[in-house]
C-alpha cells in the first residue's frame, strides 16, 4: 500500500526524519504515523506537523511504499536502517538517505545530498540525478565500515570520496565522479562510466574500481599490471581495453584499478613497463 508525504511548509532549517521508513510505517494508521517524532532544527515535533500524510500503510514492511513529493532537499536520514519495502522521492533529497539500510529499495527522481547509502548493508538505492560526496561511505574515524552490501546506482554525477572504506557491494555512477573514488576501500566494486577527478583507489587494500572515462593521472603508489580487453561486473561486460593497475602499495594493497585505455592516451607511457 502507498503512503504519500508532502511538506506543509518550506523548510529553512534541517529536518531529520529517520522515522520515514517502511519498517516504522508498517502496521500504523495515518494518525499514528502523524505522531511519529521528527526534528526540525533543535525542536522535536511530530511528522504530521511538518508533512501531510495520506494513503494507507500495510501490516508488512515489504508491502509499504512511501512516496514523497515537494521540496524535501533539507530532509535528512530518510530510509535510515530500512530493511524492506520502498521509498520513492520525487525531487531532491537531503543527507544520509538510506543510511545503514539493510534491504528494500529507495528511488530518487532528482538529486541526492551527501552520505547517501552510508554504512549500507543491503538493498538498493537508485538516484536519477546527481549525488553529493561520500556515497556508500563510512562514518568518521577509520574504524567504521563503509557500504558492506547492496547496490547503489547514480545516473548523474557523484562527488568526492565515493565508496570510502567500502567492504562489499556495488556502486555504479553513470556520470562523472569526483576525487578519491574508493578511498580506503577494502572490497566490493565501483564502476564510473564517465570521467573521474583522480586519486582513484587511494589507500585501497582490496576490491575493484573501473573508470570508463578519463582520469587526470594515476597515484604514484599504484603499479601497472597489464592491459585487459574487457572487464566483467556481475555479468555485465564492459569493453575496454583497460589498463589494470594494482595498489595501493602504500598500504600493501591488492586492489585492482581498471582505467579505460582509449579515454586516457596520456597514460600510454605505462605500456613500456608491462
Amino acid at each position: 500500500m502507498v503512503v504519500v508525504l508532502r511538506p506543509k511548509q518550506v523548510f529553512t532549517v534541517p529536518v531529520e526524519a529517520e522515522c520515514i521508513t517502511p519498517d516504522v510505517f508498517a502496521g500504523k494508521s495515518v494518525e499514528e504515523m502523524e505522531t511519529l517524532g521528527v526534528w526540525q532544527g533543535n525542536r522535536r515535533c511530530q511528522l504530521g506537523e511538518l508533512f501531510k500524510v495520506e494513503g494507507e500503510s500495510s501490516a508488512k514492511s515489504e508491502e509499504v511504499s512511501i512516496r514523497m513529493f515537494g521540496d524535501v532537499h533539507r530532509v535528512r536520514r530518510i530510509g535510515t536502517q530500512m530493511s524492506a519495502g520502498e521509498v520513492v522521492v520525487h525531487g531532491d533529497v537531503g543527507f544520509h538517505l538510506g543510511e545503514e539500510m539493510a534491504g528494500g529499495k529507495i528511488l530518487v527522481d532528482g538529486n541526492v545530498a551527501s552520505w547517501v547509502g552510508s554504512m549500507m548493508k543491503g538493498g538498493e538505492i537508485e538516484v536519477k540525478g546527481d549525488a553529493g560526496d561520500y556515497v556508500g561511505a563510512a562514518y568518521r574515524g577509520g574504524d567504521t565500515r563503509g557500504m558492506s552490501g547492496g547496490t547503489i546506482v547514480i545516473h548523474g554525477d557523484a562527488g568526492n570520496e565515493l565508496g570510502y572504506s567500502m567492504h562489499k557491494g556495488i556502486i555504479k555512477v553513470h556520470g562523472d565522479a569526483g576525487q578519491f573514488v574508493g578511498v580506503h576501500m577494502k572490497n566490493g566494486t565501483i564502476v564510473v562510466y564517465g570521467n573521474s577527478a583522480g586519486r582513484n583507489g587511494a589507500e585501497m587494500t582490496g576490491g575493484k574500481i573501473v573508470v570508463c572515462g578519463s582520469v587526470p593521472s594515476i597515484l604514484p603508489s599504484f603499479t601497472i599490471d597489464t592491459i585487459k580487453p574487457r572487464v566483467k561486473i556481475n555479468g555485465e561486460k564492459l569493453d575496454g581495453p583497460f589498463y589494470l593497475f594494482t595498489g595501493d602499495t602504500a598500504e600493501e594493497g591488492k586492489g585492482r584499478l581498471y582505467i579505460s585505455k582509449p579515454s586516457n592516451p596520456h597514460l600510454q607511457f605505462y605500456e613500456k613497463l608491462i
Partner: protein
Amino acid sequence: MIVVDVRRTRTADIADYFLKVEPNKDYEVLEALRALVRDEEIDVDQVAGIPVKTLEDLADIMMSCKFGVIFFGLGLTMSAGKLRNVDTAISLVRDLNRYTKFMIMPMRGHFNVTGANVVYSWQTGYPYAVDFSRGYPRYNPGETSVVDILARGESDAGLVVASDPVAHFPKAAAENLVKKPLIVVDPEPTATSLLADVVFPSAFVGLEAEGTAYRMDHVPLPLKKVVEPPNGCLSDVDVLQRILDRVRKIRREKVEAA
C-alpha cells in the same frame, strides 16, 4: 631541515633542502614517499614536479635519521585532498616508526585554537563542528561544521566568540551569517563585529582577564591578568555566563507561563 612548499619561503631559505611541489599535489608526494618507505618501486619518473630520485633520497633521510618530525600547516589541510593529505601524512609517520622515531605535529594558526579543540573534546567527545540540536553532541564535518551550515543557509541566528568569520569564510557563508541575527563577543573590532547586530566588547585574556591557553603541542599555560579592563567590560566567560543565565530565566518563565 627539509621544507616542502609550492613556493620558496623564508623558512625554505634557511633549510638544508627545499622541494618545490606543484600546487594541489601534496597527496601524490606523500603517497609516493609512503610507497618508497615500504621499498616499493614507482612506475613514474617524477611526482608533482619532483624527480623520483629526489624522493628516494628524501625517504632515505627520513628512515635513517634518529628522531624526525613532520610539521604541517594550512597549505596541506586546505589544498586539494584536504583531510586525506593529513590522513596519508599520519600514515607515513606510522610507517617510518618501523625504522626510527618519527612524529607529526600540526602548526596551528590563531592564538588558542588548540584550547578550543581540547575543551570541546573533553566536554563533548569531539574537537570541533559539534552539533547539539538533538540534545546531545554529534560530529560530522561537512554536515555539522559551521562553514557548511552557513553555506547551505541553514542557520537562523549566529553567535561568534573571538573569531572573524566574515574575513575568513567563503563569500556565500559570510553573507548568510550576516543576513540573520548576529551577536559577536570580541575584544577587538573585526569585519564580523562591524556587521553584527549586537557586539559585546570583552576583556583581553592574558591582559585584562586571566585564563588558560593551550600551546599547539597541547601544553596548557596560565594567562595572567595584569590590568583592570575598562569599566563595564567583562571577560568572554562572564559575558557568556550572563547570556546563559538570561536564556535559562526566559525558558523558565516560558515553561511557567505554559
